[in-house]
């Protein structure tokens, strides 16, 4: 096994163990909240999902910028952008799902057209569109440039999602951790469980992007080899004819 593969496996196992500890802390160790009761346990999984989605789209944007700039244009940036966007869509979906499960007992509805929820749904659709655009048949460079531009446009929605709770009247509470004053409103074992949740899911994200990136790189190599093989076969047929 190569050093890279060993490192990736290490990241994956660490993520798995940390997620298991987060779940144990979140479900059995931390106390129920005074007002929300046991429902507060959703706090240890829902905000980390949203954080990973922001992080994933940030990485996609940075990689897309590097691909768009001709001096740093490399296939690898395009593949990293795509791998991160895929993970971002996955975590945005989980953010919406866990938020909806929390919203039903807290607000009495599974879904409401609240500013934060709506902008998050738009974010989800924008990056689904980005992933769909990547499936359109075209040359590699053209696909890379077009999807990089789409990624930059889609990223405009990220600050809108985050700031929506301040800009509009929403049902959703303001962030307990990533707020403008950086005043963490969670303490004690609850804070530790939340912190571990952030680290654990970030590790899981790293493993996902790494695995997806490696697969995409091999798929690109596979496509190149298939073209080479087709050319070789064609030349062989023509040689026989001559």
């Amino acid at each position: 096994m190569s050093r890279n593969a060993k490192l990736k496996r290490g990241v994956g196992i660490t993520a798995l163990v940390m997620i298991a500890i987060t779940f144990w802390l979140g479900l059995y160790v931390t106390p129920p909240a005074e007002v929300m009761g046991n429902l507060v346990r959703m706090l240890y999984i829902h905000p980390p999902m949203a954080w990973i989605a922001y992080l994933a789209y940030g990485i996609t944007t940075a990689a897309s910028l590097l691909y768009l700039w001709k001096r740093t244009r490399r296939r690898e940036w395009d593949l990293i952008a795509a791998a991160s966007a895929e993970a971002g869509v996955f975590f945005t979906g989980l953010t919406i799902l866990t938020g909806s499960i929390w919203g039903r007992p807290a607000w009495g509805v599974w879904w409401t057209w609240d500013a934060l929820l709506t902008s998050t749904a738009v974010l989800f659709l924008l990056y689904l569109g980005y992933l769909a655009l990547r499936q359109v048949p075209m040359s590699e460079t053209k696909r890379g440039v077009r999807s990089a531009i789409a990624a930059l446009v889609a990223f405009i929605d990220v600050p809108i999602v985050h700031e929506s709770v301040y800009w509009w009247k929403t049902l959703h509470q303001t962030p307990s951790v990533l707020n403008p004053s950086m005043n963490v409103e969670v303490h004690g074992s609850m804070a530790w469980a939340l912190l571990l949740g952030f680290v654990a899911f970030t590790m899981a994200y790293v493993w996902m992007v790494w695995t997806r990136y490696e697969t995409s790189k091999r798929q690109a190599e596979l496509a190149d080899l298939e073209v080479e093989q087709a050319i070789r076969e064609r030349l062989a047929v023509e040689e026989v004819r001559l």
Partner: protein
Amino acid sequence: MNPYVEAGYTAVTCSLGGYAIVLGVRSRQVRLRLAKLRASAQQADRPLEDA
């Protein structure tokens, strides 16, 4: 335990596990296909090298 909390944790566990399995299976399939193609490309090159 609150049923909504149970549902939330179950959903996250199943989704993460499912996605990890899909990624792992896809990675393995592509790796095997690439190895096969590389081997056949090497075989095709061999007569030329011998010549």
